[in-house]
């Protein structure tokens, strides 16, 4: 070998070594960064594992912030934040009744940044519940559950339930007073089927309530078996299940034709005309990736109101992510996650209140455990799931409130729901209910007739009234959904602000008597 060859080999090595960052980037991305041409922008999206859930182009309508409000994205990002902070917390958390509370205090006070992480985890959980509810409202009021998106709406309802289940199992883990009594109450709600079987007198032969309760808490009273079960649900089972459902939910968005949008744009009407001589742009190979459900592939054959996903959608997503991160960080810097006293099986707090998103339910449960804890939630979930199957009217997709008629139904339903609920609750608080008038009244009567069942009746009445009046399932659905939202809001307000010690009515917390039981 000659010296010049050796020199060449060395310079090749040095040259390649210098180029490592660039070669690595090329190996990683398979296209130029940032992508320049339209083709590369499309490739950037569909050739990347994490981005390929997106279509390569989206309708310009759906990137308008006022349409989606970024709520669905916020759900995803809060879930990601929860996942990361949750895993971090697992390093210190001890799932044992003798160690759980101390380990949470340990994280708060003896771990650098521990308090911040635990705060972010708790506030993101609260935020996720709120945003999931708001996201559902957005999807409902823009009519986005309609065909072909019915199935994805159902998955959404499942995701709402899973979000609540994750929140519930999460705040049980510190094993403080909130946790202990929430476990007790939750287990007994599962067991409240016994209220029904007792009322019809079959508990001796068939007691599904007791079976459910024992399955959930692994015994008859709260203890180590219960805590470890809820820990397993919170960190393994529910996260896996919800991840699968989130994956399907996001994937279906693309497969169902992207985010919903009003049909009044000229996308199909103008250019599907075969006589149209407009020549498609042959360079747009990404057209195949944006196939939309329809009669034939519309590739390059429509007047284009779409924008490339890169950078439009990705920038929007980045903005929402930064917003979520900033909001959660700020909250966590200034407000500490609640931690009550160590669990005490002989004295609950008075009043013992759930987090805000369950206080409406707690108000309902204070009428009847079975009706408020099982019947009404089941009817609600079932009703939500059935919405797109009962309302098959395909017009007004992507239009807020289906236009002015819908807005008027929303207003009237909100007023009806608000006043009927306030009157009913005021009546209950002022005069009590059946049990206060006839102490010996059988439980079956209480199950059949209590404020919660009256609410269901009042709401059903209004639903059918609107249906008869307008002849539109869409408007009737708007009425029912609005009643659900108002019902949730009013009951939550009552449970949060108007209930004091012994679940009695008080206008203000400052009026609470200083009751302490010893």
């Amino acid at each position, binding site marked *: 070998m000659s010296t010049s060859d050796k020199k060449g080999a060395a310079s090749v090595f040095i040259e390649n070594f210098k180029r490592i960052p660039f070669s690595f980037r090329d190996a990683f991305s398979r296209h130029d960064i940032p992508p320049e041409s339209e083709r590369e922008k499309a490739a950037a999206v569909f050739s990347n594992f994490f981005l390929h859930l997106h279509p390569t182009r989206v309708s310009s309508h759906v990137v308008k912030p006022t349409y989606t409000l970024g709520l669905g994205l916020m759900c995803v990002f809060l879930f990601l934040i929860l996942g990361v902070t949750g895993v971090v917390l697992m390093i210190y958390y001890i799932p044992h009744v003798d160690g759980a509370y101390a380990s949470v205090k340990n994280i708060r006070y003896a771990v650098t940044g521990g308090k911040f992480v635990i705060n972010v985890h708790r506030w993101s959980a609260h935020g996720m519940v709120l945003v999931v509810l708001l996201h559902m409202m957005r999807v409902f009021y823009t009519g986005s559950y309609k065909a072909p998106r019915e199935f994805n709406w159902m998955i959404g309802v499942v995701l709402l339930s899973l979000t609540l289940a994750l929140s519930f199992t999460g705040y049980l883990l510190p094993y403080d007073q909130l946790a202990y009594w929430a476990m007790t*109450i939750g287990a007994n709600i599962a067991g409240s089927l016994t*209220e029904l079987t*007792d009322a019809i007198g079959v508990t001796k032969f068939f007691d599904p309530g007791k079976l459910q309760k024992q399955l959930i808490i692994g*015994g008859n*009273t709260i203890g180590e078996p219960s805590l470890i079960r809820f820990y397993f649900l919170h960190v393994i089972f529910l996260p896996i299940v919800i991840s699968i459902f989130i994956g399907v939910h996001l994937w279906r968005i693309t497969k169902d034709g992207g985010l919903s949008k009003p049909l009044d744009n000229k996308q199909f009407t103008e250019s599907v005309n075969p006589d149209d001589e407009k020549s498609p742009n042959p360079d747009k190979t990404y057209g195949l990736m944006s196939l939309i459900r329809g009669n034939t592939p519309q590739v390059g054959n429509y007047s284009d109101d779409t924008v490339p996903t890169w950078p439009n959608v990705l920038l929007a997503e980045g903005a929402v992510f930064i917003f979520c991160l900033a909001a959660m960080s700020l909250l966590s810097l200034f407000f500490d996650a609640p931690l009550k006293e160590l669990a005490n099986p002989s004295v609950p*707090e008075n*009043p013992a209140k759930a987090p805000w998103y369950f206080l409406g339910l707690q108000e309902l449960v204070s009428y*009847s*455990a079975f009706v408020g804890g099982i019947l009404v939630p089941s009817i609600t979930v079932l009703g939500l799931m059935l919405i797109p199957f009962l309302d098959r009217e395909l017009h007004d997709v992507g239009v807020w409130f289906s236009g002015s008629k819908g807005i008027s139904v929303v207003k009237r339903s909100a007023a009806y729901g608000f006043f009927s609920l306030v009157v009913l609750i005021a009546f209950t608080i002022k005069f009590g209910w059946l*049990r206060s008038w006839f102490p010996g009244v059988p439980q079956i009567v209480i199950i059949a007739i209590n404020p919660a069942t009256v609410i269901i009746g009042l709401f059903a009445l209004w639903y059918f009234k609107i249906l008869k009046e307008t002849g539109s399932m869409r408007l009737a659905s708007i009425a029912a959904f609005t009643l659900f939202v108002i019902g949730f809001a009013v009951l939550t307000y009552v449970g949060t602000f108007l209930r004091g010690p012994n679940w009695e009515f008080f206008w203000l917390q400052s009026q609470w008597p200083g009751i302490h039981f010893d």
Partner: protein
Amino acid sequence: MDDGEKIDRRTFIEKAGFYSFWLTLAASVAGVVKFLMPDVFDEPSTSFRLGKPEEFTKDGGTRLEDKNLMIFKDPEGLYAISAICTHLGCIVGETPAGFACPCHGSRFDKQGIVAGGPAPRNLPWFKIYLSPEGYLMVDTAATVTIGEKFKI
């Protein structure tokens, strides 16, 4: 098949396969449910000592905090009322009228009889008996009718 009609082998295997699949699935689910339900609950005994009868001289009430139980004595005898609300298991506190639940507002009178709120049943009265060793015992697995007091 009732007419002695034969099914072909392919159909038979197909059906047998499907039925086996569902049967296996059902058995697995049943197995998981059974797995989740412990055969033995590691829980404390339901009956325990109250003390010697001669310790109960004064009339009045006490609360056994760790048992969530209230013991009362009056001239007619001794009785034990559960402090666990029959609604959703919170611990009732005492009020001038009787007992009240801090979680959902159930009300009971001094006998433990439901007086308002969502509670579906009265607070149970537990059986009090004398052990062979001469101790007063309570069994929280055995109830007595309301008003039945144990004569000391």
